[in-house]
C-alpha cells in the first residue's frame, strides 16, 4: 500500500544548521497493516510522516501509495489518498467554525467542492450518528464552534474526520502526546477501533512505549534518518516496553562509543 524507496531530505542544506533528517529511508507497508514508528528525538519519525503527507518535497527517492507515485504531488492532492491527525489538537480543526461545518468539510476530502448546500437536513442526521459513536456527547453540540471544545474532543473529531472518507493511508503523528492521560487513552481506543473496523493501513508515530507495544502489528524504529529495526508478526507481539527501552539504550551506547572514538581520534591527530 505504501512503498518508500531511498527517501532523503536535508533541511537548511549547506548552512551551519544543516539537518539531514531523512537519509535513504526504505519502508514498504502491506495493505491493512498497522505500523508503529518509534525513535529517538530528531530521528526523523515525524519528518517521515510529513514527507509522505507532502508537507515538503523530498530531495531524493520515491513515495508510492497504492501503486501511484505521489512524490511530486502537492500536499492537497495527496490528501485525496491520505488521512491525517496531527500532534497539536488545534491543527486538525477550524476553530471558529462549528462541529457540523468541520465534519462536512471532511466528508468531501479529495473530492471537488461545488456550490451545493453544505449542510442540508439529511446530512446533519448522518453527522449526528457518526459523532454519537464517539460517545462524548458532542452530537448535541453540532452547532457549537469547535474552538470551544477540549483538546481531547478536538482530537477525537479530527480522527473521525481523517477517516470519514476511507483513506488509503492513515497517518497519526503523536496524536495523543499533547493530551492528558485520560483523553489520550480515549483517543487511542478510538483510533484502534477505527483502524481495525475499516482495516485502514496506518502509520503511527508515538513516544509512548506502552502504545508502541500494545498497538499495531508491526513496529519500526528510526534513528538518524534511517530505519534501524523492524519487528513484525510474532516478534512484534512479543515485544515489551523493556525490550524497546533496551534497544534505545543500545542505540545510545553505540552513539557514545562513536563520540569517544571521535574524541580519541581528534586528540591523536591534533
Amino acid at each position, binding site marked *: 500500500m505504501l512503498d518508500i524507496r531511498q527517501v532523503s531530505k536535508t533541511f537548511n542544506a549547506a548552512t551551519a544548521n544543516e539537518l539531514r533528517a531523512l537519509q535513504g529511508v526504505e519502508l514498504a507497508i502491506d495493505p491493512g497493516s498497522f505500523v508503529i514508528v518509534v525513535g529517538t528525538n530528531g530521528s526523523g519519525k515525524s519528518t517521515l510522516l510529513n514527507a509522505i*503527507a507532502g508537507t515538503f518535497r523530498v530531495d531524493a527517492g520515491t513515495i508510492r501509495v497504492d501503486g501511484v507515485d505521489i512524490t511530486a504531488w*502537492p*500536499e*492537497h*492532492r495527496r*490528501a*485525496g489518498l491520505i*488521512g*491525517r491527525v*496531527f500532534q497539536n489538537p*488545534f*491543527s*486538525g*480543526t*477550524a*476553530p*471558529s*467554525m462549528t462541529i457540523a*461545518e*468541520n465534519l*462536512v*468539510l*471532511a466528508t*468531501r*476530502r*479529495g*473530492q471537488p*467542492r*461545488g*456550490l*451545493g*448546500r*453544505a*449542510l442540508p437536513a439529511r446530512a446533519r442526521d448522518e453527522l449526528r450518528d457518526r459523532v454519537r459513536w464517539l460517545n462524548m456527547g458532542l452530537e448535541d453540540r453540532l452547532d457549537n464552534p469547535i474552538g470551544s471544545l477540549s483538546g481531547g474532543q478536538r482530537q477525537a473529531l479530527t480522527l473521525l*474526520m*481523517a477517516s470519514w472518507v476511507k483513506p488509503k493511508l492513515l497517518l497519526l503523528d503523536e496524536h495523543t502526546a499533547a493530551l492528558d492521560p485520560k483523553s489520550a487513552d480515549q483517543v487511542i481506543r478510538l483510533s484502534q477501533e477505527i483502524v481495525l473496523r475499516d482495516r485502514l493501513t496506518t502509520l503511527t508515530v508515538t513516544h509512548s512505549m506502552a502504545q508502541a507495544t500494545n498497538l499495531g502489528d508491526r513496529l519500526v524504529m528510526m534513528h538518524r534518518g534511517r530505519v534501524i529495526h523492524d519487528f513484525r508478526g510474532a516478534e512484534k507481539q512479543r515485544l515489551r516496553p523493556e525490550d524497546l527501552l533496551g534497544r534505545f539504550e543500545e542505540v545510545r551506547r553505540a552513539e557514545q562509543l562513536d563520540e569517544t572514538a571521535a574524541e580519541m581520534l581528534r586528540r591523536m591527530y591534533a
Partner: protein
Amino acid sequence: MSLLIGAMTIGAILSLLALGVFVSFRVFDFPDITADGSITLGAAVAATLLVAHVHPALATGIACVAGAVAGATTGVIHTRFGINRLLSGILVMTALYSVNLHVMGRSNVPLLSERTLATMAESAGTSLFGADRLHVIGWEIGTRDVSVLILALLAAVVAGVILFVFFRTHLGTAMQAAGDNAQMIRALGVNVNAMIILGLALSNGMVALAGALLAQYQGFADVQMGIGMVVWGLASVIIGEALVGTRQLGFIITGAVMGSVLFRLLVAIALRGGLNPNNLKLITAVFVFVALVLPMMVSKAAGARRGNRAAGRA
C-alpha cells in the same frame, strides 16, 4: 431630508465595499489594500463603458469582473511568488492607478446625460409612484432620491444574501476553513492558494461593483476616489460587529451593511454640524485604530483583574 437619503444611498452602495473587505480581512485575515484601487477600477470601467453607450447593467457587470481580475492578481502575486500579503495588495493598487487613468483616458469622467442604473431607477420610480414628490410619514421627499436609495439597498441586500448562501455551500465552507486553519483544510484536500485567489477575486469583484454603482450615483468617476476606501470598509465592518456581534455569519453580513449605512449617516451629520471635510479620513483612521485596540485593552484589563483575583485566592 434629502441629505440623509443621500447619505443612506452612499452607505448602501458602500456596504458592497464593506462586504468585500469582510471577505478579505475577516474570512482570510488578509489585509488587502487592492480595494483602494479596485473600487476606482469599477467606477472607471463602468463610466467609460456608459459614455460609450453600453447598457448600464452590462457596464456594471463588466466593472465587477474587472475588479475580480484585480483581486485575483493580488492573490497570484502573494501565493505564486510568495510576496507578503500587504505588499501584494500595495503593488496591485499602485499599478491600478495607471490602469485606471488609461481606462478613463483622463483623471475624471463625468456622466452628464448618460443613461445609468441611477437614471433608470429614477424613471422607473417616477412612473411607479406617479409623482415627483412623495410624502412618507410626514416628510416630503423626492421620488428620484427614494428610487435610487431603493436600488442601492436592493443591491446591498442581494449581495449580502448571495454572500451568505455562498458561505453555506461546500466551496464556501472550504473557503472559510482556508482562512481559519490552512493546515487543516489542506489535509482535507483543498488547494489553499486557489482559495485565497478566489476569495480575493470575490472580494474585489464586490468592491468594484460598489465603485461602479457609486460612479453612477454621483455622476462621475474620478481617479482619486478610492483613496482610503479600505479603511472606510473596515470601519463599517467593525461598527457592524459592534452592533450585532460576530457569533454568526448572517449577523456579520447584516452588520456590515448596517454599519456602512450608519457610518455614512454619522459622517453626513458630522459634516452638517460643521466638521471640516479635510479631517474626515483622519477621524476615520483614528476611529478604526481605537476600535481595533480597545477590545484588546479591555480583555487585557479583564485578564489582569482575573489574575489578581486568582492570586488573591492562592
